[in-house]
């Protein structure tokens, strides 16, 4: 995972509630054995019509919203299927942070595990950003993970909070598995105690 500190780019309002991971990354893009080629699949049925032609009315296809870095999203974004392909696709498309009011929980974990920032804001701050992003070119934002602020084009800075552990991991591009493997001995000792206490839980017994 590449380290994350600060990123400046344009924000796109995509405020529909409960945008699920089936819509973010439709089924036909889940058949790979690697992570490649998912930028094309992102919001596929919204971006393209049935013959593969771009749908002009979808926000990401509008000239002022191309090359977006941030999506300002509605409540419960990322609900439904656990498919991490949704997060991979957002990153491959160029999205570095999502600004919402709350995220579905598996999706949120997937974001943190890949360095896509899921920023949850109180409704009033979220609404301010959404309003500005609806008025390009005023949709330029800077998301800074060090100071945990979003700077808007009117120069105001809004604070957000990212969980400390994930923030540290993201700032340093840390490998979560390597971090846990430091506790290998503790895990093995736990297994001994656990299977002693509940021997039927030991696999293969």
């Amino acid at each position, binding site marked *: 995972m590449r380290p994350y500190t600060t990123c400046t780019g344009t924000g796109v309002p995509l405020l529909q509630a409960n945008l699920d991971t*089936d819509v973010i990354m439709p089924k036909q893009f889940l058949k790979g054995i690697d992570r490649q080629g998912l930028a094309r699949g992102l919001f596929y049925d919204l971006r393209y019509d049935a013959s593969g032609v771009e749908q002009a009315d979808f926000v990401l296809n509008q000239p002022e919203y191309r090359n977006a870095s941030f999506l300002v999203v509605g409540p419960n974004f990322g609900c439904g299927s656990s498919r991490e392909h949704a997060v991979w696709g957002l990153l491959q498309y160029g999205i570095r942070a999502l600004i919402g009011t709350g995220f579905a929980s598996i999706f949120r974990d997937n974001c943190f595990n890949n360095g896509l920032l899921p920023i949850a804001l109180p409704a009033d701050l979220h609404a301010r950003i959404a309003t500005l992003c609806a008025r390009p070119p005023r949709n330029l934002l800077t998301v800074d993970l060090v100071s945990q602020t979003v700077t808007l084009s009117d120069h105001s800075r809004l604070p957000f909070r990212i969980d400390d552990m994930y923030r540290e991991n993201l700032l340093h591009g840390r490998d979560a598995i390597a971090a846990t493997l430091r506790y290998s001995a503790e895990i093995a000792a736990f297994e001994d105690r656990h299977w002693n206490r*509940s021997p039927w839980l030991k696999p293969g017994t």
Partner: protein
Amino acid sequence: MNPRPDPAPTTPRTIYDKIVDAHTVRRIDERHLLLYVDRHILNEYTSPQAFSGLREHNRRVHRPASTLAIVDHVNPTAAQRVRAIADPQAAAQVDYVERNCQDFGIELIGLLDSRQGIEHVVCPEQGLVSPGMVIACGDSHTTTYGAFGALGFGIGTSDVEHVLATQTVVYERLRNMRVRFDGTLPPGVTAKDLVMTVIRAIGVAGATGFAVEFAGSATDRLDVAGRMTLCNMIVEAGARGAVMAPDARVCDYLKDRPKAPRGALWSQATAAWANLRSDAGAVFERDLAFDVAAVAPLVTWGTSPDQAVGITDSVPDPAAEPDPARRASIVRALAYMGLEPGTPMRSVAIDRAFIGSCTNGRLEDLRAAAGIVAGRKVAPHVRAMVVPGSSQVRREAEQEGLDRIFVAAGFEWRQSGCSMCLAMNGDVLGAGERCASSTNRNFEGRQGRAGRTHLMSPAMVAAAAVAGHLVDVRDLAREVP
């Protein structure tokens, strides 16, 4: 939200808290703990990149014996089962999971295995699920195992890799919610209608951040299959875990299954399971109660599982919704679904009927559907499919003659798998096709681009297939064909 502190050892605890406490390897910080995973289930479509990650870093699988892989999402369900898959990408996924299981020493239930089926149907069937277990799987419907008093939850592929390498997951303790069902279930009303009632009441984010414990006299009377339906689908309200107190029915279900404990271990285990209860006085931050006598068979009208009404109701009118965001959701959903406000649900004609999925693809579900179908015919314009949840369900159904009932009525009797629940395998809705479906998600495009899904119980799907339109199963049940 603030982190939830660990409950003090002296305070009354819920089943959920007891399971989390018993699996905490260590605290990481005030919010996170390292949670031990007793069993890890893999499938072919969310595991490939996890195995590739292990390979890249030269890492091994910490406990191959605690891990089981199942092919279920991409396989065809045509009546004749063969190992070859025409879709090259699906074939590559099936090949890769085989190779990974071989290289890392993991048991695989492959395509031609007599136990093949949807992971959440197969694992209970094989007795792999025990009360008190923690089970992780790269699939959101892992909450199903709550029916046994096990804590199951879905994880993404990065965490699949993490569990493979460490047998643990970095975990944040959830809050406790209880949902009680009391009273007597009316005829024609099923566990599916109960869970859809909860989702409709609290919304699709209503249980986000919570583990849900199902309780109450009506819950206790549900068979294990019905309990699985409840725990399975509550993820559609955002719950990351579900639990129920294991009882004698759960023990009866598990006894002598291939992977269940045996002999002295069985006695020891069942004694411990009897104590797996929420303590008196344990605190549930949200506590809901429903009188099931008031529940009617539900159907969805929209593109979110909480957009549901009773079958005798009509398509809602967005103009009546005061909240602008919700009004916009309704307008969008009705446009996608091709429905006019005020249309009686019972007049909505269907093109397809689908019975299957991890929510409702068990033997009990097929029996309920066959009970409606027997002696009747599928409406001529409807294409109707039954996809048993597993090969074992298929065999048991055939032993009871359910297949003959379905086929005589005009249903396709197919091989097991996820099939048109998520439509990765070629079982797909065409654009604009409307489907009565016993599955769990009516999202835009879920069953096929521009396809229109109405969620309901398997008996309601069967009734709709026969009528050719959505219909109240209670009306059909009253007439003898």
